[in-house]
């Protein structure tokens, strides 16, 4: 599982930097079986120290995280230092100011946290693209908008990793499907024909 691989990597890194044996010999050199057993136990200890308490899934605007809802109630109740999350999130998203970004937080039992930021949802990108097409900054009241296949392709490419699609064509079909559900039509013929 990718998750367990990740933890193994983190733990080896921690071990490399934090081992009391550091400096005596390289962490990858051979030592006595006792030493190896000691290292194994240390790795186990780090695993225990970073036990996952819960996950939190939010969608918030880039560069604008603040302790108000949803961040305040969602993280505050878990004992996470909200201000620290806001500082880090805002710094990492300052190039996507104001864009809705999904963020998945892993909260550990020691109240520390990690987070991954994804690209804006296809639906958010479609609305933006439809506005660009119409040249209007106002949200479309009648939910009738148009996008081009080039825009669909750009969004599909951006979201490939999140959409679980093997080909760009299937990702584009999914994005076009979302557009239809929103009342946005895709202008012209699909690049792969009918």
């Amino acid at each position: 599982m990718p998750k367990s691989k990740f933890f193994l990597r983190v733990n080896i890194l921690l071990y490399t930097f934090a081992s009391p044996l550091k400096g005596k010999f390289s962490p990858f050199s051979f030592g006595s079986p006792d030493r190896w057993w000691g290292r194994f136990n240390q790795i186990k200890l780090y695993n225990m120290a970073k036990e996952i308490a819960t996950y939190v899934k939010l969608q918030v605007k880039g560069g604008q995280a603040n302790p108000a809802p949803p961040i305040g109630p969602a993280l505050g109740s878990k004992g996470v230092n909200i201000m620290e999350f806001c500082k880090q999130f805002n710094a990492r998203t300052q190039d996507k100011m104001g864009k809705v970004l999904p963020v998945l937080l892993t909260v550990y039992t020691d109240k520390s946290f990690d987070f991954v930021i994804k690209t804006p949802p296809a639906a958010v990108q479609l609305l933006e693209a439809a506005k660009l097409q119409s040249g209007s900054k106002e949200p479309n009241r009648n939910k009738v908008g148009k996008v081009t296949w080039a825009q669909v392709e750009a969004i599909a490419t951006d979201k490939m990793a999140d959409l679980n699609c093997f080909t760009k064509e299937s990702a584009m079909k999914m994005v076009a499907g979302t557009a239809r559900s929103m009342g946005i039509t895709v202008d012209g013929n699909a690049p792969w024909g009918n």
Partner: protein
Amino acid sequence: MSHIAITLTCTAELKDILVAELSEKGFEGFEEQAGNTLVAYIPEQDFNETDIRALTAGYNVTFTQERIGQTNWNAVWESNFEPVLVDDFCGIRASFHPAFVPAPQHEIMITPKMSFGTGHHATTYSMIKLMKGIDFRSKKVFDFGTGTGILAILAAKMGASVIDAIDIDTWSVENTKENVTNNNALPVKVWQADSLKGIRDNYNVVLANINRNILLEFMADMRRLLVRDGILLLSGILKEDESAILETARKNALVLESQIEKDNWLAMKLLAR
């Protein structure tokens, strides 16, 4: 500021569509909960119930709504945070912690509520380290984006005679006032402002622990506030933004004297030339 939370249940695909649609209507953030439940938050004054009912009805979705009052969401973390010690120079603790033994040179008591600045984060920690090497006695100091007021209070404890501090958030201004009183940091004056445009005084030291965009936007103003050979301490800079900051600093006659890196964050000490 109070918020309205609306809770709705729908399919995963529809959830993303509703996030997009509701964002356009002024909703600021969303929490995805188990069982395809979406909770969306909007400031109370921006909530138009009829409009949102019409929008969700178009997708055959209904919602329940709840008013969320303003509260200190950070209370759980604050109730048991660990004290921070920066070398033997400065200790930061809550009122419920015992005093540091042995005592560092300076001890600050912070009740952060929902403001930034407790020394736990690398950006504050590194600012305190940079401040350690500066003689603040009888100096005029400006703290841009003061948060809890931690750096302004430390400057007062190090002997600064005037410390002016601003923050964009009113709750941070209130919080700084409380922390200033609790630490008896009398020279600190704090007020709410979102820009440096109206500041006309000159200062020996300017402190700014914010973020890249704000630091770049206000670099010229920060330089204007400084006397010749004045010191500018910057923090809140990710390692990858180093060149952008230094380039703008150079254009404003600010020369890098030293910098500290911690956890991929940089703090810089610049001199006004």
